[in-house]
């Protein structure tokens, strides 16, 4: 095992008894159980870990958390390769394979770094000004730009992992398990409230995990965390989710969280990889902590430059030091704690460069006492070293902080730590669309008033209260108050308390650290590391007028990288404020959008893959169709048998056979998917009068009638046959796809417009399986299985229904037809469907009964000119357009859509009409959707007068048949029109839309 040169010998939370092997860019390293990839790399002295987006600058690890802009890795291999993963958030496991990205051929030698050499020519927005020649040149340049951009490489293989999602509910949701969050969960949980506590880290504790000497309730912080974790774990109504990021705060206190179940185990893990939690809380406590801001100094991106707090986390929590010799630059007291902790771990702190004059707080004093040099009123003006910090220059600041004076001191070091103050993590608060306010005291945005309906409060450093005792107190009180709101007022125990903290001196905000050359003319002052946005870019944006926050972001791409500006937004805003000479809040704030950190697409999709993408609805005899070789056609969510090919038959042959057999003898089709609605009540007939265009009052019980339904805009939206069961009882049928819509249509009109009408609607679509027997021999077939009623034409005429027994099963038969043939629609309970179907098949054997699918059904109806709503119609056709003038109840005073039929455009005589098309060559079967023109030209454009809605080979007419909607079509009978498509032109004659000699009008 190779030595880990930057590993502290003892202490920290890693398990030194469990070494873990991993690779980075093909080289094997060792870390320990409990390491993050970042800490393990640091421990091994690996500081060059990535290349930046635009300039391909060499980069090191900046942070120890979600805000990491530089250390982005490809994790895993093959189908599991995952780009852009933050090294500080990757838990080490044995066999972990990682690689740097956005470099070629290697991280150390990256040809893309040529961008860095010519970076002077690539300021923000350079592409808007260039690549404009020649006219189509962009398509050429774009290829190269695209290749240079991007970061990691996504896998092109199917993601082998699975994902879950679920719903959860609670009284109190606590986001973040640092001191404030733990205190909140404890008080709410002790009171008996249902609590969900989430934290993105692998263990509870938050910032306490990075503490070295703090105590709470007299115990070392780590022990207090362990005790709190144990207590929470034992509360039955408290759910603790680690490795879980609350990434979106949605309406009405719903939070989306992603739980990473196996990412820390690796590909050998079983079970789902990640889980999406959708938690609906009554009250939300945001204890999300705060993020340190880096200082914007010259060449502040060199590997070895890091946030001061990150270094503290690495040394205290992970036992890894960022380097051997450190210089710290700070504008506040917190970085001194880092210096003390590093010193305690044996790291040499060359100096603390404090921007402030005369830092005299308790921590600076402690640092002095340890012999650490403090260089006050000074700044780092120069960082030397390209792939690793070698040395820094320090100079004294001028009194306004805008320049430096005196000669530079050179300090050798391999690490530069900076602290520019702290920004509360207000992301979730902001996602509720609540405002954030600027707090001058801490120079940061803090949560403003909450939004109505969003019951949340921010506590601890998430609201800018940075003290440990404040956090514990606020958390405790928030948890107790929230629980009490929902009746859990029996809070036990007091707020945990830590030792008193010394007051900190105020920070000194210098948003750009000056050097001895103007900004932009020497080194680069990076604001947004990942997207390579510098202070000079912000200045350029200002110069060119892109001064509003959003213009600044979009023009420079500041804050648009995968870290979404967690370390850069405030710095950029402040620089812009300085340029505009206004206050920071006057420049504005950026809006935080979900997700807080990037979330895999897979977990949003969950387990609903493949067939679960959308339910497949099956008819009661679906199995029979499948067993008989039928492919299925999707009609809405339903799968309907399409055709039943016999051995050696293609679709065309099978459909022809089915159509012929039905016309010649008898065919049977599973029509169970038809929508069916039971309508009862004294006002049922009145209601049908309103929703159908034709009249229903006089329909006698026992009889059936066909009707069109229109929207209030007058356009057809459904059709079907409705039968009168008794005076106040009707049975309506609808199209398969339209069934749910018609049902809600009826309810809406009833409940919202005519609530006084006495009528009830109940969907009975699935109470009945429906088998339609069609063809001249259908009666003969039926007679073999029906003995209790007379099936003769006289006793059971067209457009009537009868109750009877079919093959021993209670049934209702409707004598309605969608083929123009003698037809019986047999309705039976679905649990007997297979039995009845088989009985009918057996009975029909002597007549060669033929099952047919939806394709034959379409041909059969088209031969006789029956329309299909959704095929002949598209929401722009009236019943009159379809040639159903006769179905409009002239004597009827009112129906839905009637008034719209009277509008000038709707009553035009030359609207598009439904007609037939007979191709000149009877063997030409037109494409459905083919457009109709009167005059063919050599090339487009050509004026179109309509299109083909349905088109088939008709084995009975022994020619092609087609229906079309054509402008003024009914007045063009016999006219020859042309259909240019697919490189050919087909001539056809306009005819009536019925194609068989004895064709009766639709549904008589």
């Amino acid at each position: 095992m190779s030595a880990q040169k930057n590993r502290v010998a003892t202490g920290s939370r890693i398990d030194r008894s469990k070494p873990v092997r991993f690779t980075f860019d093909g080289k094997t390293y060792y870390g320990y159980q409990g390491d993050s990839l970042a800490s393990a790399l640091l421990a091994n002295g690996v500081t060059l870990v990535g290349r930046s987006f635009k300039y391909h600058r060499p980069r090191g690890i900046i942070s120890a958390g979600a805000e990491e802009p530089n250390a982005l890795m490809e994790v895993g291999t093959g189908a599991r390769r995952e780009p852009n993963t933050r090294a500080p958030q990757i838990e080490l496991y044995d066999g972990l394979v990682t690689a740097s990205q956005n470099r070629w051929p290697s991280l150390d030698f990256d040809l893309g770094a040529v961008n860095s050499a010519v970076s002077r020519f690539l300021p923000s927005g350079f592409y808007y000004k260039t690549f404009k020649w020649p006219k189509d040149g962009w398509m050429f340049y774009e290829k190269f730009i695209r290749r240079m951009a991007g970061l990691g490489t996504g896998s092109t293989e199917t993601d082998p992992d699975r994902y879950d999602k679920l719903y959860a509910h609670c009284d109190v949701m606590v986001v973040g398990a640092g001191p404030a969050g733990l205190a909140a969960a404890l008080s709410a949980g002790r009171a008996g409230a249902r609590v969900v506590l989430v934290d993105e880290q692998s263990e509870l504790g938050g910032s306490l995990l990075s503490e070295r000497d703090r105590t709470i309730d007299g115990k070392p912080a780590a022990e207090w965390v362990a005790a709190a974790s144990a207590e929470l774990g034992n509360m039955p109504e408290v759910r603790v989710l680690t490795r879980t990021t609350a990434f979106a705060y949605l309406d009405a206190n719903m939070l989306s969280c992603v739980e990473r179940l196996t990412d820390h185990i690796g590909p050998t893990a079983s079970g789902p990889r990640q889980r999406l939690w959708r938690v609906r809380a009554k009250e939300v406590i945001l204890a999300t902590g705060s993020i340190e801001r880096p200082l914007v100094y010259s060449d502040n991106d060199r590997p070895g430059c890091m946030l001061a707090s990150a270094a503290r986390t690495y040394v205290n929590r992970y036992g890894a030091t960022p380097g051997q010799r450190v210089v710290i630059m700070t504008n506040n007291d917190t970085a001194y704690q880092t210096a003390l902790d590093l010193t305690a771990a044996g790291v040499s702190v060359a100096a603390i460069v404090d921007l402030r004059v005369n830092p005299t707080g308790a921590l600076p004093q402690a640092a002095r006492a340890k012999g650490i040099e403090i260089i006050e009123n000074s700044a780092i003006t120069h960082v030397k070293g390209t792939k690793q910090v070698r040395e820094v220059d320090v100079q004294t600041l001028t009194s306004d902080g805008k320049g430096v004076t005196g000669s530079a001191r050179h300090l050798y070091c391999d690490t530069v730590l900076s602290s520019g103050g702290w920004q509360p993590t207000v992301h979730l608060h902001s996602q509720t669309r609540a405002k954030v306010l600027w707090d001058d005291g801490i120079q940061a945005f803090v949560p403003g008033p909450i939004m109505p309906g969003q019951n949340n409060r921010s506590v601890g450093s998430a609201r800018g209260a940075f003290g440990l005792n404040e956090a514990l107190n606020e958390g405790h009180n928030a948890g107790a108050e929230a629980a009490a709101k929902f009746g859990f007022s029996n809070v036990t125990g007091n707020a945990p308390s830590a030792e008193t903290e010394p007051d900190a001196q105020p920070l000194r905000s210098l948003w750009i650290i000056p050097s001895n050359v103007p900004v932009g003319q020497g080194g680069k002052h990076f604001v947004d590391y990942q997207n390579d946005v510098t202070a000079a870019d912000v200045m350029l944006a200002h110069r060119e007028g892109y001064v509003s926050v959003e213009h600044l972001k979009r023009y420079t791409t500041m804050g648009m990288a995968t870290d979404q500006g967690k370390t850069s937004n405030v710095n950029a805003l402040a620089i812009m404020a300085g340029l505009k000479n206004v206050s920071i809040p006057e420049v504005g704030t950026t809006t935080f959008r979900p997700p807080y950190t990037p979330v895999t697409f897979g977990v949003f999709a969950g387990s609903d893959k493949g067939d679960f993408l959308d339910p497949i609805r099956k008819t009661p005899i679906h199995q029979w169709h499948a067993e008989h070789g039928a492919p299925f056609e999707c009609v809405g969510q339903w799968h309907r048998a399409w055709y039943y090919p016999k051995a050696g038959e293609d679709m065309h042959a099978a459909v022809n056979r089915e159509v012929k057999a039905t016309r010649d003898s008898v065919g049977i089709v599973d029509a169970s998917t038809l929508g069916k609605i039971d309508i009862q009540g004294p006002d049922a007939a009145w209601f049908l009068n309103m929703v159908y265009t034709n009249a229903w009052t006089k329909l006698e019980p026992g009889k059936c009638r066909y009707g069109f339904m229109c929207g209030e805009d007058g356009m057809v939206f459904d059709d079907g046959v409705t039968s009168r069961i008794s005076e106040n009882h009707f049975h309506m049928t609808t199209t398969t796809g339209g069934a749910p819509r018609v049902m809600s249509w009826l309810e809406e009109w009833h409940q919202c417009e005519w609530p006084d009408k006495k009528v009830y609607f109940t969907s009975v679509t699935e109470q009945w399986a429906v088998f339609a027997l069609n063809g001249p021999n259908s009666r003969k077939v039926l007679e073999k299985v029906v003995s209790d009623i007379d099936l003769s034409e006289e006793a059971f005429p067209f457009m009537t229904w009868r109750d009877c027994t079919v093959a021993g099963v209670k049934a209702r038969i409707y004598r309605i037809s969608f083929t123009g043939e003698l037809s019986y629609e047999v309705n039976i309970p679905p649990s007997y469907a297979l039995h009845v179907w088989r009985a009918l098949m057996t009975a029909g054997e002597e007549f060669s009964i033929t099952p047919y699918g939806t394709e034959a059904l379409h041909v059969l109806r088209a031969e006789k000119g029956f329309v299909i709503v959704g095929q002949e119609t598209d929401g722009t056709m009236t019943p009159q357009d379809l040639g159903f003038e006769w179905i409009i109840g002239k004597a009827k005073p009112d129906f839905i859509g009637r008034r719209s039929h009277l509008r000038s455009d709707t009553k035009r005589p030359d609207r598009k009409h439904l007609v037939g098309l007979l191709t000149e060559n009877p063997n030409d079967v037109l494409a459905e959707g083919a457009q109709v023109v009167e005059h063919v030209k050599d090339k487009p454009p050509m004026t179109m007068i309509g299109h083909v809605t349905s088109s088939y080979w008709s084995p009975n007419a022994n020619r092609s048949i087609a229906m079309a909607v054509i402008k003024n079509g009914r007045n063009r009978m016999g006219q020859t029109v042309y259909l240019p498509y697919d490189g050919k032109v087909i001539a056809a004659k306009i005819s009536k839309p019925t194609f068989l000699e004895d064709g009766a009008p639709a549904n008589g």
Partner: protein
Amino acid sequence: MLLISCPHCGPRDEHEFAYGHEAHIARPTLEQQNTMTDAEWADYLFMRKNPKGVHFERWVHARGCRQWFNVARHTVTHEIIKVYPMGEPAPKLEQK
């Protein structure tokens, strides 16, 4: 995701409901239909208030009790200010 209080079933997730657009648009009587201009009919059919603020609208608990009801909802904050039965006039609310 909105949390809508069905007047019968209580608070349920938005995806159990279907939206019914602006409330309180009465269908013209037959008499009105026969005397109104096409423009007036278009007004009934298409013209909407579409306010930025409190919107009076209809919802139906489609995956639950199938009942329609009215909702006063703020179109900027998504706050549901009031749920009230069909047929009841729009409540007088202070504009937020």
